[in-house]
């Protein structure tokens, strides 16, 4: 075993430690908390690079190293946790730490004016630690713990400006919606533990993802593979909640209430990718290797249906659904949010049709260009003084050149502009795999349609924001200085340098996954490929590349024709698409009224249930408590009665008796001698009488 896997725990540990120290620091120690966060993240990045380098040198089965340790014992069984270092974890570690580091540096500039600077960095570090924990977890339990922690920090960061009611509501919505998914994940986890007896993924042949254990735990009997399918689907529902698949996507757009770095880090690059990562991690459950399974009904001809069927369809529908909604949005961050939902759908689609490598490749490239787009949007918002409506922006290309250039790169990568940008290569892999999916061609067509829409709405956004005339309202200036301050301006270096770094990644990362040199895919599968240009033209790959390029150009052209050629003049003008198809546009702008549907059904039912519980609590349990209270009061009253009338009275009476007898005895002792003598004489007489009469008798 290599050295890195033993100290792998440091990678999430350092940011968690930074979060802990920063939490205790007072509010004015801004540099301390920012320094701790960035320092911890930088160290984690270096460690991740070292881990990655180590994994590079290993091949095949050796590439996976685990480090398990027992946590606690119950009964005879030991609950074990551990971490794993394999290619999947290695690439994810590098991506999360790099993007995280870049965004942390960006946040120093973005949150410079905020009063709660230290709290922000504490939560960011906590998130980073938890996310890295999800990545390296070798136990479904440890993954779940870090998963929940990630959800918590997401809640804390979305509601960072909690005094805004919309932000507080959005945080609550995010938490509750992902909770629905988490329940399913918990159920799946428990079921898996019941079936296999272990929650460790890899444990030298004894882990729950390893073939021997799976084959033994899930024999193909008369129920077919239903338990395995059930577990896989439950875990996928958990991933759906976290990764915003339809119908659990409603929280992601509202999560834009948080600060822009939060949106970039959590809701674009990393946390929402955690769902995709989870599916990739437990892919052995999603697409079981049927050859290893035995049983009386072992399938010989057709493999039974597995969870990838559901994953593919959900992904495809989400990709198109969200892209349609994004077409009609006007908030710069909301467009990007729906775009994220759509791209997550693509990732799930890729996992379903093509496997871990295809989905993960798109995840990695998406992280870079989506983070870039969000940070660029943040830079724009910062530049136009917290304005977020694209109808009120325009012509910003002159004022913010660096932001415009990097934003354009990100936009082209997202749209999938051919050859130069990473998005093209990763999306193409997905479309290629969807094209050759044996079950149906429809995901492929949906994917193409989604690509068209993606190019279209991104062009719309870029035209409205950066081109055309400046529509940003400038207030009446009292002095020349104030006038200058009101004009849109470029952001400081601490914000633009991260943009440049991410832009470089958005371009360069594509080249590690081209069909000519599929290094990324092979790395994940444990081989080392050679550069082979022939693969570019083999098997219809070239044709597919041409088709997708055409689709992208069509989308870009449509966008330019509607929004670039005749830019809108003022903020209150109707949208160009709206003029063409008003009803459709209305539905799209209303986000297909999913939120309203939930409000009318789930929320209302939930409110009724809460009312019921409240009544139960108030009248039944409260009644019981009240009854107990009265019972106690009654008992105490009875006790007091007893005490007063029995004990005290008895005691008082006896004291009285003693007093009276004492008084009587006192009266006897009156100091009068003759009385004493008289008593003596009387006693003597009585004695004599007794003696005489007794003896005489």
């Amino acid at each position, binding site marked *: 075993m290599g050295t890195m896997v033993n100290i792998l725990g440091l990678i999430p540990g350092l940011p968690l430690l930074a979060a802990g120290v920063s939490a205790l620091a007072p509010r004015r120690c801004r540099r301390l908390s920012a320094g701790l966060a960035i320092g911890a993240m930088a160290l984690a990045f270096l460690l991740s690079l070292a881990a990655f380098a180590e994994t590079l040198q290993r091949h095949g089965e050796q590439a996976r190293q685990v480090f398990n340790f027992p946590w606690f014992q119950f009964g005879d069984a030991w609950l074990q946790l551990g971490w794993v270092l394999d290619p999947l974890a290695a690439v994810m570690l590098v991506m999360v730490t790099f993007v995280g580091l870049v965004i942390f540096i960006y946040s120093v500039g973005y949150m410079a004016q905020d009063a709660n600077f230290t709290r922000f960095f504490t939560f960011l570090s906590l998130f980073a630690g938890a996310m890295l924990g999800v990545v390296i977890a070798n136990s479904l339990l440890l993954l779940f713990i870090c998963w929940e922690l990630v959800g918590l920090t997401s809640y804390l960061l979305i509601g960072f400006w909690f005094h805004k009611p919309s932000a507080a509501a959005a945080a609550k919505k995010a938490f509750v919606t992902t909770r629905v998914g988490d329940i399913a994940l918990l159920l799946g986890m428990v079921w898996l533990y019941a079936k296999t007896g272990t929650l460790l993924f890899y444990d030298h042949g004894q882990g729950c993802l390893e073939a021997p254990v799976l084959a033994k735990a899930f024999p193909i009997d008369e129920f077919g593979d239903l338990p395995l399918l059930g577990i896989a689907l439950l875990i996928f529902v958990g991933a759906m909640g976290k990764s915003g698949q339809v119908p659990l996507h409603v929280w992601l757009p509202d999560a834009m209430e948080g600060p822009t770095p939060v949106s970039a880090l959590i809701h674009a690059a990393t946390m929402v990718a955690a769902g995709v990562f989870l599916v990739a991690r437990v892919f052995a459950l999603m697409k079981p290797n049927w050859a290893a399974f035995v049983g009386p009904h072992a399938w010989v001809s057709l493999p039974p249906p597995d969870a990838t069927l559901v994953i593919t369809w959900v992904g495809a529908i989400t990709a198109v659904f969200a892209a349609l909604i994004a077409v009609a949005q006007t908030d710069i961050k909301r467009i990007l949010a729906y775009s994220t939902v759509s791209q997550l759908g693509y990732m799930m689609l890729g996992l379903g049709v093509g496997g871990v490598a295809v989905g993960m490749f798109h995840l990695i490239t998406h992280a870079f260009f989506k983070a870039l787009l969000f940070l660029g949007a943040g830079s724009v918002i910062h530049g136009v003084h917290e304005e977020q409506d694209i109808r009120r922006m325009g012509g910003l290309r002159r004022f913010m050149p660096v932001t415009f250039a990097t934003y354009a790169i990100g936009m082209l990568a997202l749209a999938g502009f051919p050859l130069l940008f990473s998005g093209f290569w990763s999306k193409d892999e997905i479309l290629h795999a969807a094209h050759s999916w044996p079950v149906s061609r429809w995901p492929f067509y949906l994917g193409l349609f989604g690509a068209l829409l993606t190019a279209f709405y991104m062009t719309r956004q870029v035209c409205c924001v950066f081109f055309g005339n400046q529509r940003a309202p400038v207030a009446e200036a009292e002095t020349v200085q104030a006038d200058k301050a009101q004009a849109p301006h470029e952001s400081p270096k601490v914000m633009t340098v991260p943009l440049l770094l991410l832009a470089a990644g958005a371009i360069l990362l594509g080249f590690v996954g081209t069909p000519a040199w599929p290094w990324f895919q092979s790395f994940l599968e444990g081989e080392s490929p050679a550069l082979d240009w022939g693969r570019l033209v083999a098997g219809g790959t070239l044709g597919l590349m041409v088709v997708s390029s055409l689709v992208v150009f069509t989308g870009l052209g449509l966008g330019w024709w509607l929004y670039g050629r005749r830019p809108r003049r003022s903020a209150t003008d109707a949208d160009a698409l709206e003029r063409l198809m008003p009803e459709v546009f209305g539905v799209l702008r209303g986000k297909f009224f999913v939120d309203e549907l939930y409000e009318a059904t789930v929320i209302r039912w939930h409110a009724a249930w809460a009312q019921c519980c409240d009544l139960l609590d108030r009248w039944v349990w409260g009644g019981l408590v009240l009854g107990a209270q009265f019972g106690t009061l009654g008992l105490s009253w009875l006790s007091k009665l007893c005490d007063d009338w029995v004990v005290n009275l008895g005691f008082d009476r006896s004291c009285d008796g003693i007093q009276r007898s004492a008084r009587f005895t006192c009266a006897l002792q009156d100091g009068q001698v003759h009385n004493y003598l*008289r008593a003596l004489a009387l006693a003597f007489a009585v004695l004599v009488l007794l003696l005489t009469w007794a003896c005489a008798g």
Partner: protein
Amino acid sequence: MMSLQSYLILAALLFSIGLAGALTRRNAVLVLVGIELMLNAANLNFIAFWRFGPHPEALTGILFALFSIGIAAAEAAVGLSLIIAIQRHYQTTSLDRVDSLKG
């Protein structure tokens, strides 16, 4: 010469007269007088029993009565001096005023 019984009855009556006086008179000296009467009655009892009882040659009754007389004399002396001391202290010889032992 009376019978033993009559002497004994006489002694009993004398005793009870002395007792009555000791119990009723307020003056301390008179209480002492009563006590002397009681002692005398007892002496009479002894002599009467000596006279009429067996073994008069042992002279037990006579000697007892003699010693009783002696002791009575000593006791009268001490008692009377006590009364004098009490009278000096309490300025009275009435026994109902001497009640320091009152509890």
